[in-house]
Every structure is written in C-alpha cells, then in structure tokens.
C-alpha cells in the first residue's frame, strides 16, 4: 500500500483544474492556490508509503481544503488581505470587474460548509456521496445544502448589488 510517483502525477493531471477552481473561489489569489495544491501533493508524497492509490484523489481534496482553510485562518489572524487577481477572471468590462467583486463578497458570507458543497458540486466532478465523505456531512444533506447555498448566493448578490 504505497502511492507510486506516476500515480501522484496522474492525480495532479486529473485534479489540478478542479482543485484550482475551487480554491481560487476561496483564496482569490493565483499563487496561493498553486502553493496550496503543491503543498498538498508534497505532504502526500512525504508519507506516500502509507497512502492508498485508491483513495489518493480523496486525500488530495481533503488535504488541499484543509490547507486552504488554514491559510484563510492565518489571513484573518494577521488581517492579511492579498490583492485579488481580478485580471485572472475574464474581465472584459467594468461590470464584469464589479460582478467579480460582488461574487467574492457574497461567497465569503456563505457558511463555510455550504460554500464548499457549492464549489465542489460545481467543479470537482465528485458525486454527492463523495462530497459528503470529504466534508464529513450526512450524504442526504449535500443536495439540500447546495440548493440553500445557491439560493442564499443569489440573495446576497442582489443585496451587494443594491448596496
């Protein structure tokens, strides 16, 4: 039971895009996202002897999400707010720029678990059961949390737009 290096790289090829999209909507910083992804893979590589290839992808997701949470906690603690890579998101007009800002504020106001459910459902290609296992929530609540998160997000976006 040890993860081979090519399995690790295979996992990276599969998950880099989905991980990046989920983490970017939490950290809003390109380099931080890639740091977190690399850090997750390096940690797993360091203890590859005890890692099962069958559960490698799930472990990557869990590790990366935990690292992102730690980074957000660190930012809150030190009141550190990195500049957002606004240009990274396709911004073709001032409206798009403001929409990105609004989205960021609204996503931040969602409960952490609901936000994770929403982002994982959108980008991870994981099934409800797998998302539930990752976030350690009952499987039956994944769909309802996603639905609630989407509804709340729409309300928050309207509120932010009105403000």
């Amino acid at each position, binding site marked *: 039971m040890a993860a081979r290096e090519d399995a690790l790289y295979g996992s990276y*090829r599969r998950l880099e895009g989905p991980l990046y*999209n989920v983490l970017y909507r939490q950290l809003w910083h390109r380099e931080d996202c890639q740091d977190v992804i690399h850090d997750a893979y*390096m940690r797993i*590589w360091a203890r590859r002897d005890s890692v099962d290839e069958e559960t490698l992808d799930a472990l990557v997701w869990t590790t990366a999400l935990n690292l992102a949470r730690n980074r957000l906690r660190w930012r809150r603690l030190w009141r550190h707010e990195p500049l957002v890579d606004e240009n990274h998101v396709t911004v073709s007009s001032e409206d798009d720029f403001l929409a990105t800002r609004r989205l960021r504020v609204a996503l931040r106001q969602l409960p952490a678990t609901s936000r994770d459910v*929403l982002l994982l459902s*959108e980008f991870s290609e994981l099934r409800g059961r797998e998302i539930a296992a990752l976030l350690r929530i009952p499987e039956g609540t994944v769909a309802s949390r996603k639905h609630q998160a989407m509804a709340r997000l729409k309300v928050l976006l309207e509120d932010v737009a009105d403000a």
Partner: protein
Amino acid sequence: MRELETLLPLLEPPPGGLARLQQKIAKRRHPSEQVSGRSHRRTWNTALAAMVATAICVALVPHWVLQRRQTAMIAAALRRDVLPVNGIRVLNGAAIELPSGQPDVRLYLVQSVADTHQNDMK
C-alpha cells in the same frame, strides 16, 4: 453545462504546475546534494561556538571559584570569632583583631552578618 457557469466560469490554472511539482519532488528526493553545503556550514558554526564557550569557561571559572572560596573562608572565620574581641562586641556581625605594627593603634576587620549572608548568597 454547469448550473453556475456564468457566475463561476472555469479558470485555467497557471501553466507549468506539474513541471514545478516534479522539480520540488526531485529536490526533496535528493536532499543530501541540496543541503550538504548548508550542513557543513552549520557544523563549523556549531564547533566554533562550542570552542568560544569553552575558552570563556576556562578563563572565567577559576577566578570565580577562587573568589567564592575566599568569601566563604572569611565568612567562616568571622562566624567562628563571633565572641567579643578585647572587649569590643559587634552586634549583628563579628570582628577580628589584626596586627597594627603600632602600640597605640588597634586594627579590626569588622563584617556584619548581613554582608556575610549577601556574600554567601552570591
């Protein structure tokens, strides 16, 4: 088609991520080459610090021991001779008559108990 495609568009991660990860793993796999220079420097710094500490000890410890021994001897002598000397009684201390060389001059070494305690404490 994702439900929130317009709100959350798909972003491309920065290019070259896999290559950078492979480089990091390669560096971690051969740490001896990476850190050999650093570890040599660290060893020399540690050895130098140890030598300096030893030299300081060799220079200072005998002096300190001698000083403490003298203080202890004086304190012990004073405690022994705490009885009145030639009719002179020192409260909270003691006196030792020292040879003066002149018949009409008397010389005493006087030390109070408080001083002795302080010296002992040191």
